[in-house]
């Protein structure tokens, strides 16, 4: 309906974004009213900041994505290496977001950066070289950003799970250390558990592909008039790349993060062990 009234693509996009925004705000309003009624009944203050936080997130998301659109528009005619630089910048931001899941463990940013760059960077570079990703800015940045985002999620989950395992099993880890074992030996079962837990969501996405949801790339290609079979195959390519990246990133995160839970004298660090007992 909208495209009949607004033929210009820019104004059409603005109108579509405005409608989506209004919908999101209406849903938020309903939620806030429900929470306010609940709080009035129970005397609690839960969710007081939800409205403010959601408005900020919506505004931030809108501004960020418009900026990305502008930058993409500027970069489309530039050399391929500028796309690589843009992906590196994305990886730095992704590492900063992922490291928050490690909640104060020293060295988490460095680990996240190396893991995301190692996982996403190697997959993007190899696939671009092989021609699976078209060596153009228009292909490299959108597909690269999907892969970097996947690496960020996997890295964040790996950091969160590993820290959870270490905190939950600090006594078992120390029992191994007390017998003269290396930190990596005592950590092995918990690293394995954290690794599997971090990869399960990615496996579930692969399993449900096409049945539970039709992801964005395929939907976009079909909307753009591409043959649905090719769009489906290319979507699978992207999902397989995201899975490969996730596995690489999780492995790197586990290997690099382990040592940060220990002191040089092979004791569990203060963040990992409540060693204040009497």
């Amino acid at each position, binding site marked *: 309906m909208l495209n009949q009234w607004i033929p210009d693509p820019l104004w059409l996009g603005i109108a579509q974004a405005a409608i989506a925004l209004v919908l999101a705000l209406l849903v938020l309003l309903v939620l806030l009213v429900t929470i306010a009624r609940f709080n009035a009944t129970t005397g609690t203050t839960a969710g007081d900041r939800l409205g403010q936080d959601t408005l900020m997130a919506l505004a931030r998301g809108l501004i960020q994505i418009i900026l990305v659109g502008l930058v993409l528009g500027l970069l489309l005619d530039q050399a391929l290496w500028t796309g690589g630089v843009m992906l590196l910048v994305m990886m730095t931001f992704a590492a900063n977001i992922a490291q928050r899941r490690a909640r104060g463990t020293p060295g988490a940013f460095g680990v996240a950066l190396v893991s995301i760059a190692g996982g996403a960077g190697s997959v993007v570079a190899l696939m671009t070289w092989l021609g699976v990703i078209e060596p153009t800015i228009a292909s490299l940045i959108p597909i690269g950003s999907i892969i970097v985002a996947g690496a960020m999620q996997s890295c964040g989950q790996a950091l969160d799970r590993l820290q959870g395992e270490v905190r939950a099993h600090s*006594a078992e880890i120390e029992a191994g250390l007390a017998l003269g074992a290396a930190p990596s030996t005592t950590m092995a079962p918990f690293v394995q558990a954290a690794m599997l837990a971090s990869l399960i969501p990615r496996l579930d996405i692969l399993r449900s592909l096409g049945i539970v949801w039709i992801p964005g790339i395929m939907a976009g290609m079909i909307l753009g008039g591409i043959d649905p079979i090719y769009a489906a195959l290319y979507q699978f390519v992207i999902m397989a790349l995201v899975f490969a990246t996730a596995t690489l990133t999780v492995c790197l995160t586990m290997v690099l993060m382990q040592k940060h839970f220990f002191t040089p004298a092979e004791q569990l660090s203060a963040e990992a062990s409540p*060693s204040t007992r009497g």
Partner: protein
Amino acid sequence: MPVKQAAVILATQGLGRQVGGKTLVDAIALALHAGEIVAMIGPSGSGKSSLLRLLNRLDEPTSGTVLLWGEDYRTLPPRQLRSQVGLVMQQPYLFRGSVADNIRFGPRQRQMLLDDATVDGLLDSVGLTGYGQRDVKHLSGGEAQRVAIVRTLANQPHVLLLDEPTSALDEASEQIIERVLVGYVSQQQAACLLVSHRPEQVQRLAQRVLSMDRGHLTAIEETMEHIYAESMDP
């Protein structure tokens, strides 16, 4: 003719640990000799477990140090130190797998594989004959505690640190463990520091008794009678 003094295996020099401004252990000076069992008593939270963790170097001292065979323990590789200064924690944390896997764990870290006969012998000594292939998931608390003790003994440590090792055991099992400990200390000429809340156990096993309170050693006595006599003084 002078009485020959047994060799000091482990000694502490002004050993202390503070965490976040709280003193857990302060200025501890003690020596453990070959072939002796020293008991440590004191109320909960007095720093007994913290001291054992420092001696095994699971925690780092914030003051002072520990000497093992006269050598500052910070100069030793931590794994080597911990295999020589064995710690049995109050709560027995066993590793997934069989009882035999647990007993072989310590020596395996030094590329030593205990044969079946050695594992069976260790299990026999604590009344767990035939338990080698059992999954640790199916052990009672008392059985797990006994496995934890022989798992540490399998490393043949020079110093044994025991944090209430028989707290989960019945009287019969407690006596078995006590016999094993006395036999090990005597045969290996090891030193043993035993935290216990049971006066009768301390009486039965210890040659000396240390008393701790609020992170400090408040008394070092030759026998339990001295401790009780002092506490009865007006």
